């Protein structure tokens, strides 16, 4: 079979940043091709070039052996290229039917709206992937996985020949990933080609026929998946070798007295949660999206009011009505969504790091010492290795991993006794993930108590001494050190 897509020598610059420095990508018809690379390697840019969203500075695009000197989004769609973006580009305030039928109605240039016609189109769409959903539901009320399937159904309605999925599994639970992979396999049988963009090792190996890896806007390798090993994959992506088998037992473990204990805690989203946290311990809290894990972290940080139960810190029962109360008790939270909850994106790195420590950097008269602020920030930038040329730069100029380090640095600056991290390495590349995990283990060995809330099972295994599993707002399992394994956790969360 021929190549459905052949792009050659694509270059693209933004201002002075060379996002793509001559990228080639060839996809055979009917295959599932994986495009991998760390954040910022140019994956998203090349997708946007293929879909006509960006005009390349140099290079050629061929679809089905037909050249497109200037690709526009509508040409791309007509040629059968569809992109499922991370945010799915759907209208949350409309119903499933409306979301599915809109494009077709628009494409047919119909001026009037016919409800029956809408329903027919929508029914046809969901049937293509055997997707069982309430067609009259508002899309915003549906789980993330369903939104994704709506986007896929919509793409198929437009006769997609090549579907590009941009990091499709980031917000999905194991079960949902499995369902998505079944759909991908079905699509493949029906002759649809898939370009699967991901940096998650295990998924890439499971689903793809061949792999292209990008690094810093350049091709590193393209080969059939069968010729790739996990070790090579990581090396090609990062250009570094990692000791992936780093053993937790290597670190000195020093689990001390109980620092926090939670009894019968309930709040909207979870109920009757009990656990004890010790000094120097890393406790994992895992479970699917909506299991109450995020709500639990918010309740411990004063952002969600408990309806029952007690929280005890260092032997004293405490109330945590707001964040500053949590801060005074020595509790810190690195939130789930660093872009909206964690960071002041257009503000400087300095301001982002020192915000929670301002009280200490202020004189009695209320004057903030600029010198102290800059020193404090410089100290943390150095300590946790934030890669930046200038601390005055807005934090939005940093990569995902470095942004996460800034949020982490902010809370470490307050010298917390209990550090809670919700999804500490979501959207972070392998190198930074490794750095963050080592840092957390080091902090624990120095006596800090850490709670890692995560649905990334590999992460929980790699870092935690103990884990509690949540499901539907309840704790359904507790696993201690030796019991922590991929199988035990997977079966407990599903």
């Amino acid at each position, binding site marked *: 079979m021929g190549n459905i897509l052949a792009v050659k020598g694509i270059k693209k610059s933004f201002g002075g940043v060379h996002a793509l420095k001559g990228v080639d990508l060839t996809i055979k018809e009917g295959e599932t091709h994986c495009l991998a690379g760390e954040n910022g390697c140019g994956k998203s840019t090349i997708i946007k070039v293929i879909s006509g969203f960006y005009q390349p500075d140099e290079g050629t695009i061929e679809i089905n052996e037909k050249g497109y000197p200037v690709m526009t989004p509508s040409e791309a769609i007509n040629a059968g290229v569809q992109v499922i973006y991370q945010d799915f580009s759907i209208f949350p305030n409309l119903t499933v039917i409306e979301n599915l039928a809109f494009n077709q109605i628009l494409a047919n240039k119909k001026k009037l709206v016919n409800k029956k016609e809408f329903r027919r189109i929508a029914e046809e769409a969901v049937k293509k992937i055997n997707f069982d959903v309430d067609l009259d539901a508002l899309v915003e009320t549906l789980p993330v996985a369903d939104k994704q399937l709506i986007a896929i159904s919509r793409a198929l309605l437009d006769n997609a020949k090549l579907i590009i999925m941009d990091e499709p599994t980031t917000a999905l639970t194991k079960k949902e990933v499995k369902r998505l992979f079944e759909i991908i396999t079905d699509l493949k049988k029906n002759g649809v080609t898939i370009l699967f963009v991901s940096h998650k090792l295990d998924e890439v190996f499971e689903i793809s026929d061949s792999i292209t890896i990008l690094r810093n806007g350049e091709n590193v390798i393209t080969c059939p998946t069968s010729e790739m090993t996990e070790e090579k994959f990581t090396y090609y992506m990062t250009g570094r070798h990692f000791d992936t088998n780093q053993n937790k037992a290597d670190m000195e473990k020093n689990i001390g007295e109980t620092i926090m204990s939670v009894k019968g805690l309930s709040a909207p989203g979870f109920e009757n949660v009990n656990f004890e946290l010790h000094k120097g311990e890393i406790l994992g809290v895992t479970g699917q999206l909506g299991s109450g894990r995020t709500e639990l972290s918010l309740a411990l940080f004063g952002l969600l009011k408990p309806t029952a139960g007690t929280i005890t810190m260092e032997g004293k029962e405490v109330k945590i009505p707001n964040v500053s109360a*949590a801060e005074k008790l020595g509790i810190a939270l690195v*939130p789930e969504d660093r872009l*909206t*909850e964690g960071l002041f*994106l257009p503000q400087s790195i300095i301001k982002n790091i020192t915000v*929670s420590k301002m009280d200490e950097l202020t004189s009695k008269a209320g004057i903030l010492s600029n*010198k102290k602020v*800059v020193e404090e920030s410089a100290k943390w930038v150095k300590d946790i290795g934030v890669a930046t040329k200038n601390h*005055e730069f807005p934090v939005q100029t940093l990569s995902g991993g470095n942004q996460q380090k800034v949020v982490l640095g902010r809370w470490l600056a307050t010298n917390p006794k209990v550090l809670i991290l919700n999804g500490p390495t979501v959207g972070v590349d392998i190198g930074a993930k490794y750095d963050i995990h080592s840092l957390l283990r080091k902090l624990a060995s120095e006596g800090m108590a850490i709670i890692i809330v995560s649905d990334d099972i590999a992460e929980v295994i790699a870092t935690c001494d103990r884990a509690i599993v949540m499901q539907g707002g309840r704790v359904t399992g507790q696993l201690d050190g030796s019991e922590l394994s991929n199988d035990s956790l997977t079966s407990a969360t599903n």
Partner: protein
Amino acid sequence: MMAKIKKIDANILRLIMILIVFLIIACVTQPTNFMKADNFRSMAKQMTEYGLMALGVGVCMISGGIDLSCVYIANLSGITAGLMMQSMSTTSSGSGYILLSVLVAILVGAACGIFNGFLISYLRIPAMLATLGSYQLFMGISIVISNGSTVSGIPEGYTMWGTTLLAGIPFAFVVFLICIILLSLIMSKTRFGQKVYLVGTNAKAAKFAGIKNNSVLIRSYMISGILSAIAGLLSLARINSAKADFGSSYTMQTILIVVLGGVNPDGGFGSIPGIAIAVVILQLLSSYLNMFPNISNYYRDLIWGVALIAVLILNFVTNKRKQARLAKAS
């Protein structure tokens, strides 16, 4: 440290350059009328009132909102002080009652600001709507307590401040300068000031960082209310009277000044010195236009409207360039 100084300068430098170019044009075209000490004195008095309000609007805009009610807070405060002075001047002697009236007027301004802040923070009403509503409310209260008429008969012990010169500088302008300096320090050097910037950048992240957003917002609007009250008091002294609908065109002007001064309408960025220079630029422009008898007053709104939109477009373009530069540098 150097980098920080340079960064602040970029915006202020641009404003100072506009100011100088404008002064040169004025010198060349209107050398006799414009370049007179008297003209500058009268400009200094006029700019003080809306200048103070612009500072308040600036703080609110940096916090991510806006204050459309400041003109009416000023009028309400002025009327309150005027009525108190009127009724007490017959029974009291000395200047104690004048001081008392001034204090009460400032408290009224602060209370109005706190009310705005309460609507915006605790009740989460968009600032634009909350202050549009309270604008009507404050004007309504002013009309009721003044019976819809001009409050006059202000004792001379107070109105003399409207003509006092300190080393040749009008008293009102000295008050304005003190407010500029104090507010600059508050916004750039204190913990509270930094919090205003951060809440204005991302209120959700501010909450997660342990900032008490509601208290920061209420204090921001309170500052705006106090500055407006001072403006109202100065206007009471200057024109010997107060009226419920005095200076209604100032609302628009304060917003123009704040945006010209480099405050980001989305919040989080902007500086008090920038606003202060923008006040001067606008007053010069306004007085300069007055010197041409053939430009009728009918054109004023048109000119301010065009100016505001032009400044917004200019800011959009410079911001885009700045983003591109940053992308290059990182």
